[in-house]
């Protein structure tokens, strides 16, 4: 039920083509997959696994290395509050405490209405606007208790829907251009082309040509 939609699968396939090796698309594909449900559902992980040709355990293992991927459901808005050095010096922990009270959850928790998930994060590279926070990876800062409250209200009311899409939606612009360079043609011209690469290509072709024809 939470497999990737056909549309997203198509999008994923295009991304896979951009890379010299399928597996390289693993992280971009996880981002795309996370855009669908706000988190990486097991079914979506299985889809990504088959698209990039590794086992689901490896996709999950890889995704779990990265903070941005959620393997459990999260709220519509994930609020990441930086408490690292610059923000801390500007009162980030006090702000975090306020946020916890306001939302009634501690870091890692999701409000019962599934609207907000609160996270304590490492430096978000917004230190000139400390204390800075991100909502679904969109920046806000410098924050104080009052501006935080206003932000919550605006997010809830949908006023910021344009700026802050639901969690998981990362890059709203699709790449318009396929790989343009014909590497095969370039390779053909190269005299000193690595024999190994050529051989590997032949190998793959041969493997694809296994006879399974009706006439056999």
């Amino acid at each position, binding site marked *: 039920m939470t497999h990737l939609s056909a549309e997203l699968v198509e999008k994923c396939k295009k991304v896979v083509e951009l890379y010299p090796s399928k597996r390289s698309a693993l992280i971009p594909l996880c981002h795309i997959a996370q855009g669908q449900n706000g988190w990486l559902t097991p079914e979506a992980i299985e889809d990504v696994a088959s698209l990039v040709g590794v086992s689901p355990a490896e996709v999950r293992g890889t995704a779990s290395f990265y903070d941005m991927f959620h393997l459990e459901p999260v709220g519509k808005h994930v609020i990441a509050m930086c408490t690292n050095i610059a923000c801390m010096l500007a009162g980030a922990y006090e702000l975090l405490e306020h946020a916890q009270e306001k939302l009634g959850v501690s870091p890692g928790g999701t409000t019962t209405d599934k609207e907000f998930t609160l996270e304590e994060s490492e430096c978000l590279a917004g230190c000139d606007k400390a204390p800075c926070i991100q909502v679904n*990876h969109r920046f806000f800062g410098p924050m104080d208790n009052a501006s935080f409250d206003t932000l919550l209200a605006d997010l809830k009311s949908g006023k910021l829907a344009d700026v802050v899409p639901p969690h998981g939606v990362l890059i709203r612009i699709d790449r318009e251009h396929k790989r343009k360079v014909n590497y095969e043609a370039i390779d053909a011209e190269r005299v000193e082309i690595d024999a190994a690469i050529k051989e590997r290509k032949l190998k793959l072709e041969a493997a694809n040509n296994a006879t399974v024809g009706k006439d056999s």
Partner: protein
Amino acid sequence: MALTTFEKIVSKRLKLENSYTLEQYLATGGYDGLKKALQMNPEDVSAEVMDASLLGRGGAGFPAGRKWSMLKPSPVRYLVVNGDESEPATFKDHELVERDPHQIIEGTLIASYALGARQAFIFCRGEFALGLERLEAALNEAYAYGAVGSDIFNSGFSIDLVIHPGAGAYICGEETALLESLEGKRGYPRIKPPYFPAVIGLYGMPTVVNNMETVSNLPWIVLNGGKAFASLGEGSSAGSRLFALSGHVNRPGWYEIEMAKTTFRDLIENPELGGGVRNGRKLKAFIPGGVSAPWFGPDEMDLPLSQDAVAQKGSMLGSGSVVVMDETTCPVRAAWRISKFFSRESCGQCTPCREGSGWIERIMHRIEMGLGREEDIELVLDACDNIAPGLTWPPKQTTICVLGPSIPSSIHSAITMFRDDFLTHIKEGGCSYDGKIN
């Protein structure tokens, strides 16, 4: 020293309206550098960069020209631009990617041309959602404009560019972890030797990894010549650089300043720059180059922002981020928070870093909470010593990458500079500075 004035190199568009669009970019000389480069021999482009004495802006400060010259010959080479910027208190690449993505693309293309790269990747920190959108839009524009793809500007040179979003792991800024991540794996740094990217990089092929700001300098260098760049700054610290200033200053932000000609005092106090310590308070300490760097005290305020000068005093310019801590800062708390960062960000491969970072964080937390014991100070230092033997600078290491030996920097600094604060915490169960931690 006085503040020098010069034509800004990487930041000239950052404050313009719609600076991230192709229209604005072209209106301000965009892609002229690439066009000029394509008229030159690739070797000549490299020679200009060598002349420029452009130091890498990612943290290690290795000269870009030299790095390029070390790239192993091979029919397949790659260029990867490192925009994973996650070093705490560093936010210059963030600004560049949101405000001037075309400049990054142009720089990447120039470097690709000079290096004969087969394909180039811009690895951009995943949390920069807006930046990623602007970069992707800019790339679409650049393709349409003919600046990327096959036969760029009818020069016969072809290259494809991929924008690769990161997914939130500090360690992926380390260049070999970044390559692993780009290959779709867990971001585990590779062991050097033998995995120097210039020899065995992306997909095992020779690869150059350069920081986003580093490549952003290239259009200017090609247009104005390496010598012009090197005429700014002094010695090996040539040109100008974006410094990210944060913490207890009146005007936190990024400032492009001439290297070596400016001092930390200028950066922090000059009214056009930091504008002085917040609320007129006294400076207690500052971090000169990201949280991996050992701290400096008021005595080092007059050091120039020069790689060598800072190194001589036992720290580094690192990622070009300066954090100011005023007299109300609790050094125990600051050092604890930094240790917490490393503990959360250790990739977990090496035992000393994986286990050590967590243990150190716990000891620091204990001390900060007022539950420390006097022997904890030596204990934490010894735990640090097992990651970075001798606690020297530059550090020795028992680990694969230098994240491990970065852990002790702030702790060692804080204990050395402010041992009394630690003792107070231990004896009195807390400190008199602002704030609590939870």
